[in-house]
């Protein structure tokens, strides 16, 4: 029990000697704080430029008219929802396989960001669907698989906090994240495999984007803004997660040293 609880620190000592350089939290944090100001800068700049193009300097669509502007917040959110899940699943897999503490922290820090992007993809899609399709929601393969993605994020977050023994919760959550990765290709190809109300991909497709340059510009600017937003928030949350695990390890050591488990000062 005790050895499990303080594993993070045991890991750290072993990690610096044997494992990959950035498996060491302190080194990883140094890398993270070096990247953070750049991510923040890129995020603010591309958001400003992206919003300018999205709302002022881009034409209405020939069919969907002004509602095409919802695309500039909807599509990047949907891309990031999937990208964050891929990151969550990859980090969880390496946490399970190599027992990297840092990988687990990256996964924990990613989950709420991915959940937020998924929520936005669903909500802005709904706000776009009502005026264009004529409905807020349908149970087609694309919409349903993205809703499942949202529940996978929530499941991961809940499992991580559900066990008294934190390492067991982390393990269960990581397994869920890895298993749920099956959903990512299903989301991506749902519009090609089955009849759906949602249209197929416009940008990431074999014969090149089906979007005019004047609309691709704001879309890609917003995509860069969302990506750098993820990196910026990830940097903040990874640090907070590493802090949390250090605090827990310190408190456990203090309790066992003084041998008064009810002393929670």
């Amino acid at each position, binding site marked *: 029990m005790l050895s499990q609880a303080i594993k993070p620190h045991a890991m750290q000592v072993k990690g610096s000697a044997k494992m990959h350089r950035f498996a060491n939290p302190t080194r990883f944090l140094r890398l993270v704080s070096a990247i953070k100001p750049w991510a923040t800068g890129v995020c603010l700049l591309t958001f400003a430029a992206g919003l300018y193009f999205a709302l002022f300097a881009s*034409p*209405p*669509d*020939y*069919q*969907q008219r002004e509602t*095409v502007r919802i*695309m500039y917040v909807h599509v990047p959110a949907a891309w990031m929802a999937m990208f964050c899940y891929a990151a969550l699943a990859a980090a969880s*897999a390496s946490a*399970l*396989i*190599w*027992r990297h503490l840092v990988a687990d922290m990256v996964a924990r820090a990613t989950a709420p960001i991915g959940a937020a992007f998924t929520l936005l993809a669903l909500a802005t899609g709904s706000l776009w669907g009502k*005026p*264009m*399709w*004529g*409905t807020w929601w*349908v*149970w*087609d*393969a694309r919409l349903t698989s993205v809703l499942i993605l949202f529940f996978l994020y929530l499941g991961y977050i809940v499992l991580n906090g559900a066990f008294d023994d934190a390492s067991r919760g982390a393990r269960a959550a990581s397994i869920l994240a*890895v*298993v749920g*990765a*099956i959903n990512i290709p*299903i989301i991506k190809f749902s519009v090609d*495999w*089955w*009849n*759906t*109300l949602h*249209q*197929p*991909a*416009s940008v990431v*497709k074999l014969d090149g984007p*089906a*979007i*005019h340059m*004047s*609309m691709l510009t704001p879309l890609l600017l917003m995509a860069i803004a969302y990506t750098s937003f993820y990196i910026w928030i990830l940097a903040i949350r990874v640090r907070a997660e590493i802090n949390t695990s250090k605090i827990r390890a310190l408190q456990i050591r203090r309790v066992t040293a003084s041998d008064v488990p009810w002393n929670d000062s």
Partner: protein
Amino acid sequence: MKRKNKRLSFVFLTLLALAAAAGLILAAFEDNIVFFHSPTEIVKKNIRPEQRLRVGGLVEEGTVKQSGQNAITSFRVTDLTTSLTVNFKGILPDLFREGQGVVAEGHYRNGVFEAKEVLAKHDETYMPKEVADALKKSGKWKVEASTKPSD
């Protein structure tokens, strides 16, 4: 084998097995996953009049008719092979127009589709109006936007 290599191959094999299982399940439930059927499928299949289902395709050019008194809209949905008459009483979505994708939900009775709900479906192309007009003028317009009658 080292423990972590064992874990690596375990995770990898589990994922492979899960992917195979997911593929089989999705293939088995294909009929429930598709959101709509094409007019060809609906005409071919033996559909009971009480069965609620969806038909999807393009609104055939020149077939949309509004009857003034009972506010029923009638149009033909085509998949470029077969077309089907749809009757609908209600408000159509803004994107509903001839040559545009459409999904109707309702009952297929006596060769006519009685829709309870009509949704518009659009394709993945986005462009300004001027570009679309220029493409139409130069004859480089894609086929979906100008469906020819198929019957």
